[in-house]
């Protein structure tokens, strides 16, 4: 307190020495104001000097390793011409390129670490929804409660050349048994020349829009029917590499080619030995690749345009080619087209309101080998499956999203269709409503009207809760 009075007095003295206009007017009010200002200025100056001293001390500590480097320019002091009157103008702390400023805790971690959990609760007219209705691995799988996805996501810069990503998923099956899977673990180059980018490891193939997305990014509680049919319960992901090229054009246009082993349940339509050693009723051979041509190839092209300042369109075409395990020379081809459109007004707050439309259509040609030993005997035949889903999301109010998804899947007749949950005509209509209490949690209510040739009509209602802990990397558009 005494110091403050002293400061005040000394500043007043200093002020009285200045030919300030206040003296001429002689207004007590003005002098008082100036006294206050001078007082503040002095206080601030002390604070600022303390900061400068701290910064210099810090610099002294960091200067030792920096000394070896030549050509480090000297710090440029920020010159601030101090206005002569009413001058609370502290010297801004000088910034210099050789002086990394520590920001305390922020950004001090080497990677983002997050833990995200999805919990579903609901009921279905189907006794066992997982047997027929919800084939996806992260879909609600039973009446009552399901915990289909608890995911640990890690990402960060490995070094100046690579970024690393990992997704470790834990899930509970209908018997409440935990299982763990290494969903993704890959590195991605950050400094290849010629607009190229390399990805290697275990990762989701860049096929269409939803396949590479993790369940917590989905707009509905379950995966689209056609994706579950073409790519299986877990989506198309495998060990391999991918090279992508950003075309040097004025608009976004990207070509990519993925090459994978194409093996196992996560390559459902390819070299997949199947559950109990069968795929579409056929006993499988555990094929090993005869040559590089027996690997799984996934080319993709995508492009994007800003239709207006507020509307963006992203469209793509994808394919996947590879052998399958039903015969020694059997192959599978999958083709897909996807489109995503989003409107967000210029003055959106927190990302709301918005309207988005997403549609994907897929066609699969699967050469199924003959299996004479099966009962009934299965001929060699080509299974053709196709389908699409189309969904509209309307973020009608901050943190509220209403969605509607319509789906249709069908295929040609196959010899094993009567018992095959992955085939046959099916339609599903799903309205849903999502509320985001914050960016890190959500509550979703969804109704499914399900109609299938093999099971008739079913109704399901699901409530989903999500929470996310920690720092999660930013998502793509």
């Amino acid at each position: 307190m005494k110091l403050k009075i002293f400061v005040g007095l000394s500043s007043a003295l200093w002020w009285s020495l200045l030919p300030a206009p206040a003296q001429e007017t002689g207004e007590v009010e003005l002098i008082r104001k100036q006294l206050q200002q001078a007082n503040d200025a002095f206080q601030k100056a002390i604070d600022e000097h303390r900061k400068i001293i701290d910064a210099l001390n810090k610099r002294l500590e960091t200067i030792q390793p920096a000394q070896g480097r030549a050509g480090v320019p000297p710090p440029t002091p920020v010159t601030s011409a101090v206005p002569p009157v009413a001058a609370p103008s502290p010297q801004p702390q000088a910034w210099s390129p050789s002086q990394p400023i520590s920001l305390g805790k922020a950004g001090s971690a080497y990677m983002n670490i997050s833990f995200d959990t999805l919990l579903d609760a609901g009921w279905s007219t189907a006794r066992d929804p997982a047997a027929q209705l919800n084939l996806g691995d992260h879909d609600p799988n039973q009446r009552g409660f399901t915990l289909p996805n608890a995911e640990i996501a890690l990402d960060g810069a490995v070094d100046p050349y690579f970024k690393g990503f990992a997704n470790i998923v834990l899930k509970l099956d209908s018997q409440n048994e935990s299982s763990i899977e290494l969903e993704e673990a890959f590195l991605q180059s950050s400094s290849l020349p010629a607009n190229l980018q390399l990805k290697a490891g275990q990762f989701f193939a860049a096929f269409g829009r939803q396949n590479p997305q993790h369940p917590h990014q989905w707009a509905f509680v379950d995966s689209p029917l056609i994706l579950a049919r073409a790519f299986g319960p877990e989506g198309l992901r495998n060990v391999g590499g991918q090279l992508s090229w950003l075309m040097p054009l004025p608009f976004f246009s990207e070509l990519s080619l993925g090459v994978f082993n194409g093996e196992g349940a996560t390559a459902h339509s390819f070299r997949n030995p199947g559950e109990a050693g069968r795929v579409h009723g056929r006993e499988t051979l555990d094929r090993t690749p005869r040559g590089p041509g027996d690997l799984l190839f996934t080319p993709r092209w995508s492009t994007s345009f800003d239709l207006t300042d507020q509307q963006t369109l992203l469209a793509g075409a994808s394919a996947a080619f590879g052998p399958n395990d039903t015969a020694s020379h059997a192959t599978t081809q999958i083709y897909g087209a996807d489109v995503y459109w989003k409107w967000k007004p210029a003055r959106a707050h927190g990302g709301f309101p918005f309207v988005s439309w997403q549609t994907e259509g897929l066609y699969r040609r699967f050469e199924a080998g003959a299996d004479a030993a099966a009962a009934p005997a299965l001929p060699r035949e080509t299974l053709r499956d196709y389908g699409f889903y189309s969904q509209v999301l309307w973020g009608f109010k901050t943190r509220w999203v209403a969605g509607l998804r319509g789906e249709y899947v069908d295929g040609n007749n196959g010899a094993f269709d009567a018992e095959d949950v992955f085939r046959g005509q099916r339609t599903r209509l799903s309205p849903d409503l999502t509320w985001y209490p914050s960016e890190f949690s959500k509550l979703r209510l969804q109704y499914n009207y399900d109609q299938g040739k093999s099971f008739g009509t079913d109704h399901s209602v699901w409530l989903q809760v999500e929470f996310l802990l920690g720092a999660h990397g930013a998502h793509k558009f």
Partner: protein
Amino acid sequence: MIPQQLFNVQSFTIMKNRLSILVLAAVLGISPALYARLNVVVTTPDLAAIAREIGGAHVEITTLARPAEDPHFVDAKPNFIVKLNKADVIIEGGAELEIGWLPALLDQARNSKLAAGAPGHISCNEGIHLLEVPSTLDRSKGDIHAAGNPHYLIDPLNAKIVAAHLADSFCKLDAAACATYQANLKAFTASIDAKLNGWLQALAPFKGQRIVSYHNSWPYFSERFGVKIDLFMEPKPGIPPTPTHLGEVIQTMKSEKIRVIFVEPFLNRRTAETVARNTGAVVLDVSQFPGGVKNTDGGYVQLLDQLVSSLAKALGGQAR
């Protein structure tokens, strides 16, 4: 004027060749070193305004966020990837302002010039004394920024620090034009210094007066100009207003006779209007981004001019 006869066939062929090389280069996306203009991509319009002042004719500036847009929630549009792919420099505010969208873009940009730590990646928060750095990270307190409040540029003294930072960085990237950058810095600093006194004086009569804001984006302005912008319509940062909380805000406004509510273009003006109707306060449209509200397209100094004068007017109106 070039005489017509100089335009002979030979030079025309050369011209044509050169033109086709240029066209080819443009098609292939190679930026020909015709003039050493730095291709600068800036995340927000306020930083862009200062970068323009410092870079002048030597830089070409592309701004990602639009003036009236919420800088925290810009869509990571694929075309931004193309812009970043071709850029020599990315200027960001840092301090987690763009954390929800810029990292995803940079990951896909395939441009090592913009790598973290490279001279072409400028984080303007470096060298700024950030306010409200949380001592503990706890999301039950709302959407807090671990690095501190990122809306620092609205303090003109921080603008000077950022300007100096940019001039330094531009010098490193384009030594040939360094003198121009430093001269532009001097001019910009002088323009702030010339105005600062006036701004301070315009708001001096209102020292300590409270102002309501939708979001806590004004602590640097408060600190510099002595007004108190510490009552928010959001109960916690990033959490939308609740009726209970608004009731409390209205109560406080009535008892303390608070008469001004700040609303930024991307925030819910209707909520502010409702509160204003209940309290007799004025809703003041303000922006931290040049072009965000009327008469601010001219750049940083004009933005501050508009902000200070409209605030002084609104606060002065209550005395009557």
